[in-house]
């Protein structure tokens, strides 16, 4: 088993039985669910909206090269810079280079999962650049030196008293646990950063090909401030963020908002196409877009799973997933958590190291059912499992166990014998008082649960008896 897999099991075990964690997550997800249902009811046909979004993103992917070039042409024609990064390193280095050339000391960031994916902050900080996460949730996890817990609500695992305690330690001046007061405190601190920030780094929810603009959706307005006040703006996005037309946003914007938080529309739906023009009041002097590949073209090459690139990172599948609800976001040990993370991470970081995530699923299909762009998530989990087995990336003990199982199942006599043996063995374990101890062969299951009694007769024996009696 890989270290990542061992770590996953260890943390999953810990978090599943952490009652405080369960309570916080349940509260967060319950409130998401009611908002999401209310949000869906504002569409006359939510399923039609999902269809439309799936089609828009599929169309974008089917001519990805053309749309990317179109986007680049429009952006550069207005004086923006477009940089194509094959991997994390190229993307990180580009940002650092721009920062150094412009003598940047302070960076303000609006929420961007791509910058998490490429681990941008540590590099900037190592080079003496101060980095401020300005999304409140991101700011909280940054103060805690933690990765985001959830792709949309990064501090979902913390309650108000955790946050009050954290603010008291790091900022000071906390008087109450009241969320309004806590937000006001963060606002004062972060506004100083916005006005001092020399470079703003944002993500992009969409890259609109026909008008050459990036689309950013934020509720807090931090995305607006990051892209309005500093003298340089760098937007970072995966190449799959492209959409063909501005008109597509008429559907994608409300669908993203509803799937993400249950809102009808995110407060600030922002389009940015360049630096400040000569006739404009404000805005940055430079506008850069970094287009990141980092494994995405390999996913495009996988025709079975290409639809994963339709993902708009709304986080709905995390909220719907029974595994996520039990083990929590940090357990995954990945940038993208939940079903989408389990499907995506093996493509971004290797099947060998991350195939275990695809096994951490009940295959219930809740993720597929909620996905606003109709990604066939649970089947992709199954395909990853198959690929992991076929490429020899599973432990030899598992292979041995399945060979044995197959051999046993192919003969009624063997099936009968091993069924009998199993029942006897379990009975013996219980009689000896070993149930739930490490000597119990079913330890992983029985350590938290009482094993049920095995019936005296097997189904097969009962069938034989009843069948004989009825004849």
């Amino acid at each position, binding site marked *: 088993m890989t270290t990542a897999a061992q770590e996953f099991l260890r943390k999953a075990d810990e978090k599943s039985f952490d009652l405080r964690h369960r309570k916080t997550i349940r509260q967060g997800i319950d409130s998401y669910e009611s908002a999401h249902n209310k949000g869906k009811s504002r569409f006359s046909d939510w399923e039609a909206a999902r269809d439309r979004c799936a089609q828009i993103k599929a169309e974008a992917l089917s001519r990805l090269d053309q749309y990317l070039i179109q986007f680049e042409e429009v952006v550069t024609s207005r004086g923006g810079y477009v940089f194509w990064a094959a991997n994390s390193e190229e993307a990180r280095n580009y940002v650092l280079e721009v920062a150094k050339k412009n003598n940047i000391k302070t960076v303000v960031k609006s929420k961007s999962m791509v910058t998490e994916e490429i681990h941008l902050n540590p590099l900037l900080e190592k080079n003496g650049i101060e980095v401020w996460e300005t999304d409140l949730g991101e700011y909280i996890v940054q103060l805690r030196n933690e990765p985001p817990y959830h792709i949309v609500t990064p501090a979902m695992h913390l309650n108000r008293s955790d946050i009050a305690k954290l603010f008291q330690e790091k900022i000071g001046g906390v008087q109450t646990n009241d*969320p309004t007061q806590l937000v006001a405190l963060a606002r004062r601190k972060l506004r100083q950063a916005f006005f001092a920030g020399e470079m703003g780094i944002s993500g992009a929810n969409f890259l609109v090909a026909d008008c050459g603009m990036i689309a950013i959706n934020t509720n807090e307005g931090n995305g607006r401030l990051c892209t309005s006040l500093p003298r340089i703006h760098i937007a970072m996005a995966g190449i799959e963020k492209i959409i063909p037309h501005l008109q597509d946003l008429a*559907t994608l914007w409300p669908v993203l908002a509803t799937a993400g938080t249950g809102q009808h529309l995110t407060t*600030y739906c922002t389009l940015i196409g360049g630096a400040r023009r000569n006739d404009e009041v404000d805005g940055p002097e430079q506008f850069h877009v970094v287009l990141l590949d980092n494994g995405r073209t390999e996913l495009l090459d996988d025709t079975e799973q290409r639809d994963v690139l339709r993902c708009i990172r709304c986080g709905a599948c995390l909220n719907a997933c029974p595994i996520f609800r039990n083990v929590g976001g940090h357990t995954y040990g990945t940038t993208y958590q939940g079903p989408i993370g389990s499907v995506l991470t093996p493509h971004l970081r290797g099947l060998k190291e991350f195939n275990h995530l695809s096994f951490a699923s009940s295959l219930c299909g809740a993720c597929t059912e909620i996905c606003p762009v109709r990604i066939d998530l649970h089947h992709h989990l199954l395909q990853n499992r198959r690929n992991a087995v076929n490429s020899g990336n599973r432990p030899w003990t598992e292979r041995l166990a399945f060979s044995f199982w197959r051999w046993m199942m192919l003969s009624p006599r063997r099936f009968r014998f091993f069924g009998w043996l199993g029942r006897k063995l379990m009975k013996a374990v219980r009689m000896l008082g070993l149930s739930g101890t490490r000597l119990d062969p079913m330890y992983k299951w029985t350590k938290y649960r009482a094993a049920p009694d095995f019936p005296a007769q097997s189904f097969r024996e009962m069938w034989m008896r009843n069948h004989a009696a009825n004849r």
Partner: protein
Amino acid sequence: MPQTGNGSREQILQRVRDALTKPAAPPCVGPPRPIFALVGDLLERFQKECAITLTECTVTQGTESSREAITSILDSLPAGDFYIHDTPQLRSLIEGCTANRSVRWSSEGPPLETTQVSLTLAEGLVALTGSIVTSSGCGGRGASVVPDCHIVFATIDQLVPDLEAAMALIQQRGLPSKNSYVGLITGSSRTADIEKILVLGAHGPRRLAVVLQNR
């Protein structure tokens, strides 16, 4: 002044093209059908949506009552600078109602950190979602996000029914090529990052007020 080359452009595009030689199954979807119910009365719907998103919407009859509505908002705010989108329309509207505030016109530069309130025009209003369509042409980027309160002055004929109409308006007016920023704003700045509890005024305006003149 290009900062550096364009990175792995050719390599990435080649990989995309190679991958796309293999077709993938199209998404399994039904025939296209309407997504939102048609919006009937634009003004009624806009007001209803404003109530949901906590946008203050005041409908006025003529310049005089618009001026009164703006004055009453200004009077309810603490002291501080007043930032105004510099257009002849707002110059004449605002005459005599800046109270005792020091005024900064957008032609004099962007809003300062201390700006208490701003007044701008909008490119349009969306009835379906209660949104305002704005751009850097409406007093700049900061006008709608730096102050504590953002007042938008608009007229009823600026209402469009839904988002498709809003996108068409943006395109027809050529806003993307004339402005480096275009946006929809629906409500004031907010966050629910702490226990999913809604708090207004996360970073930007705590209040968004639309003064909608019926003429």
